[in-house]
């Protein structure tokens, strides 16, 4: 397309230029003739024509002198012009007509002529053979033709080479994908150094595979955990029911056994529920429902709720909540986050322990703290506590599903908050930091 356009422009400009050159040549020849005619003997014009005709440089010019009645009286013009001015004549090539040039094989040629009406009524004609212009035009066409053919061939060759290279790489990619599909999950696509689109695709695919593998391992971890943590209560349930069935018991014993079975089934179901809930929170869809939540109000309310609970269990609960602190969030989930932390403080501490709830602004962040004076979490275990089903050895005997802190982590993550455990000297302090939240 662009080559075609370029060709058109070059052709047009070159033709125009050559034609203009021809007209200039004719004009200057005409001037020379008329100048020569003023200084000669006899009919100076006729002798000038004869003189010019014999010059080698004037080979492409034709001259003609007409009487006022129109008859040619001199020169070698093969046609008889009928009027004055610029005109073109189609003339056969041959002896006495247009001069043959090397490589001229057309039967006719075109003359570009200027006919000048002289003062004495005669007409002087100077014409130029346009064969050379036509030849130049043809040369341009030929040049472009060859260039086009060569370009096409080169493009084809390049295309074949490129696509063969491309296909080879796609093939390699395909082989890797098939290998991964067949279970070799740690295979990765070979990424070249050119950084082209295909390399970038390979890079992206590799990163995707890394993440998939990570989540697959996470999933495997969870299913292992489920297998481990749910098999126990379910087999206990089954054994209990079987044991009851074996003995010939009365109605009350059966009823008690069924009640226990229901309790155990409920516990298993709540573990399932908690797992699904964490998975849903982690999916992030809840973020669409975020509203302004009054954290001060929320924590004050929880303190009121848990003060009697802690008193009954022989622990002291205190709250130091700065009023009017709001954050964007999901109230229901934030309640659960703080309840889980508060209940951990109440459940995993010895009698007489103190649990404190705090909320304050700090360096533009909002920091909620739940601290206790229990035995704390050993530093080595702090990074593990958010894992699903992870339980400290010390708390194995306390009822619970080991998902409380996983849920805390999921809710915090959803809110862009950070949960950190530190030593409370003695005990544990959990800090939930909501970074750069809008203030009330």
């Amino acid at each position: 397309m662009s080559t075609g356009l370029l060709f058109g422009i070059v052709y047009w400009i070159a033709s125009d230029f050559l034609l203009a050159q021809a007209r200039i040549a004719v004009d200057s020849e005409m001037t020379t003739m008329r100048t020569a005619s003023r200084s000669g003997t006899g009919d100076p014009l006729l002798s000038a024509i004869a003189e010019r005709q014999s010059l080698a440089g004037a080979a492409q010019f034709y001259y003609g002198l007409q009487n006022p009645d129109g008859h040619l009286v001199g020169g070698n013009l093969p046609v008889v012009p009928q009027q004055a001015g610029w005109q073109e004549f189609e003339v056969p090539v041959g002896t006495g007509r247009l001069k043959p040039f090397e490589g001229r094989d057309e039967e006719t040629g075109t003359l570009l002529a200027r006919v000048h009406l002289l003062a004495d009524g005669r007409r002087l004609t100077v014409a130029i053979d346009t064969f050379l212009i036509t030849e130049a035009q043809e040369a341009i066409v030929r040049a472009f033709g060859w260039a086009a053919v060569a370009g096409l061939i080169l493009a084809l060759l390049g295309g074949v080479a490129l696509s063969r290279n491309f296909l080879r790489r796609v093939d390699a990619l395909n082989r890797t994908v098939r290998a991964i599909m067949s279970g070799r999950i740690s295979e990765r696509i070979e990424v070249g150094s050119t950084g082209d689109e295909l390399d970038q695709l390979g890079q992206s695919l590799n990163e995707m595979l890394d993440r998939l593998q990570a989540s697959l391992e996470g999933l495997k971890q969870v299913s292992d955990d489920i297998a481990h943590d749910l098999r126990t209560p379910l087999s206990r349930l089954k054994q209990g029911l079987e044991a009851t069935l074996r003995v010939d018991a009365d109605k009350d014993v059966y009823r008690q056994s069924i009640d226990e079975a229901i309790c155990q089934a409920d516990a298993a179901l709540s573990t399932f529920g908690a797992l699904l809930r964490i998975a849903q929170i982690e999916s992030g869809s809840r973020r669409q429902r975020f509203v302004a939540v009054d954290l001060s109000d929320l924590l004050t309310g929880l303190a009121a709720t848990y003060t009697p609970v802690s008193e009954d269990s022989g622990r002291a609960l205190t709250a130091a909540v700065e009023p009017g602190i709001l954050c964007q969030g999901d109230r229901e989930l934030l309640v659960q986050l703080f309840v889980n932390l508060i209940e951990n403080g109440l459940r995993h501490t010895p009698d007489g322990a103190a649990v404190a709830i705090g909320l304050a602004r700090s360096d533009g962040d909002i920091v909620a703290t739940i601290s206790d004076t229990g035995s704390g979490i050993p530093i080595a275990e702090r990074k593990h506590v958010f894992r699903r089903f992870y339980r400290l050895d010390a708390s194995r005997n306390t009822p619970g599903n080991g998902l409380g802190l996983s849920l805390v982590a999921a809710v915090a993550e959803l809110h862009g908050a950070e949960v950190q455990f530190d030593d409370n000297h003695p005990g544990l302090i959990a800090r939930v930091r909501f970074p750069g939240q809008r203030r009330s």
Partner: protein
Amino acid sequence: MASHLVKSLQQHGHVVDHSADGRDGLVLAAGETYDVMIVDRMLPRVDGLALVKTIRGAGIAIPVLFLTTLGGIDSRVEGLEAGGDDYLVKPFAFAELLARINALARRPPLSDEKPVLQLADLEIDLLKRRVMRAGKRIELQPQEFKLLEYLMRHAGRVVTRTMLLENVWDFHFDPQTTVVETHISRLRAKIDREFPTPLIHTVRGAGYALRDDS
């Protein structure tokens, strides 16, 4: 599941119509006056959410209890937004469902809400936030007042632990500590202990009920 539910509800004296898909349910809801509808979120042909939106759009105000699948934390909000009145996550205890539909079926319209609720010699004034029993003023903590108010509104009916957690504390999960039991026991100490007839009763395997047995 549905036929089991129908049978159990009939055993408890309810008249039950059942349809297995959303479109038939819509026809039923439009044609009859029910006290309560139990709608599963996952229904063939017309799903539960669309069904309730449709009947609400048609101006039918039958109380709706949604049944949702396990762990569906968004379903409650969606259900309530669609015009549902309560929700219950499957699997659930039948006692829980029974308590909830009883609560829904006799929920008084909000317009003729009385500012003073009364049961036997117990009286609570919702505007003045004041509680009197046998003419004697009883001081309650705000959460205790809220708990008592909820029990009073459902006087004579069983309210489950979960209903209390959701409606009094806005806890939509199961806490690991005895939040409900502790607060009920505090409330009992204040409104029942010094009086001859207890009003707060524990219903075994189901929950609590505020009623006058005398």
